[in-house]
């Protein structure tokens, strides 16, 4: 979220609510409920660390609004952001540890664990396909985000299948 907000401010100054709308427009329904409170908190932190600066703008019949702009340090942080590659998604997660340790504890059955986990992944996959169907097809960014999430889940499901083949 921090860097996404910085990146939106690279185009020019904006206030919190505008940034929320920009995010909504960019990510469509694929972005779960942008929380305006969270955006203000993040902007506050960014300001504290000197990456952006806020300026109060008077409004006639409303409280002042704060318009933020990027500082030189903020622009530098963005350069670093674009320069770096990102970590791979996790492989050894909590589920894996449960699966690995279940037989020794005698407290859980591996196949039951796999089946339960698969149900959850499938349910989430189903929500994602519904989301993809509901999202505007022309919003390519939103569609790609959903498709990416689905492909990751698919890999997780394929891996569960492998676990079941090996452990059954």
């Amino acid at each position, binding site marked *: 979220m921090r860097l996404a907000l910085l990146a939106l401010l690279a185009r020019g100054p904006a206030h919190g609510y505008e940034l929320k709308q920009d995010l909504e427009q960019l990510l469509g329904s694929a972005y779960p409920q942008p929380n305006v409170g969270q955006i203000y908190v*993040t902007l506050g932190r960014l300001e504290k660390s000197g990456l952006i600066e806020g300026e109060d703008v008077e409004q006639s019949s409303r409280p002042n609004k704060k318009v933020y702009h990027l500082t030189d340090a903020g622009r530098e942080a963005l350069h670093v952001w674009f320069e770096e590659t990102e970590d791979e998604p996790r492989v050894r997660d909590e589920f894996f540890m449960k699966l690995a340790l279940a037989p020794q504890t005698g407290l859980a059955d591996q196949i039951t664990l796999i089946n339960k986990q698969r*149900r959850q992944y499938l349910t989430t996959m189903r929500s994602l396909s519904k989301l993809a169907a509901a999202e505007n097809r022309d919003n390519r960014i939103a569609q790609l985000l959903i498709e990416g999430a689905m492909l990751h*889940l698919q890999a997780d499901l394929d891996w569960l299948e492998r676990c079941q083949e090996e452990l059954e």
Partner: protein
Amino acid sequence: MSEDSVPVLRAEGLVKTHHGEGAPAHAVRGVDLSVARGEFVAITGPSGAGKSTLLHLLGGLQRPDEGSIWLDGRCTDSFGEARWAVERRKAIGIVFQFFNLVSNLSVADNVELPALLAGASPKQARAEREALLAELGLAGKERGMPGELSGGEQQRVALARALVNHPPLLLADEPAGSLDSKGTREVMRLLSRFHARGQTIVLVTHDARLASAADRVISFFDGRIADDAALDGAPPRRAGISGVLELKD
């Protein structure tokens, strides 16, 4: 029993062993299954788990060594080849991974042929074909030959052919197995649409994305049902969908 409570499809104790050159392959090892009217069931599992064999048994393309199948409450034990062929024309539509269209017939003829064989008048058959092809976004392609179409388009023609006689049951065997990601989404969208209108569907797929379009997913391993899960009505989870999409921090 009222008509609605009779399952469209029921199987009990299905067993099928393939006797090839090597050791006998136990493709289906005791399967009980009931599919209610309007249900969309996906059968998933690794390749070689026997899920395609199961689908072939359900469509009468292969006969079980043991067990029985009921279509709309009718026991099929005594059905011969010819009778199954009639069922596949009227009661069961099937789509396959490689479309299996008749390559030297036009798109229109591929779709109309099963209607004519089932006793529809040429006029009715044409009307059904026109409506289905329009619905599947293939209007204007009816004079083309299957070989001139993309894979996704061929699968849509196969879907039209399978549905032209309004069968109560649609069986789909890896319908997106030879399609790209875009074609897969298209097949998914169409199956969901027909299901929303009440079509009963049994889909075999190794593709979890496709399976998630169904409202019930059966996990098939080593010839047996390992899990049978209804996807709707599951309790809300902590992370779920927002967990996989959200921007951190």
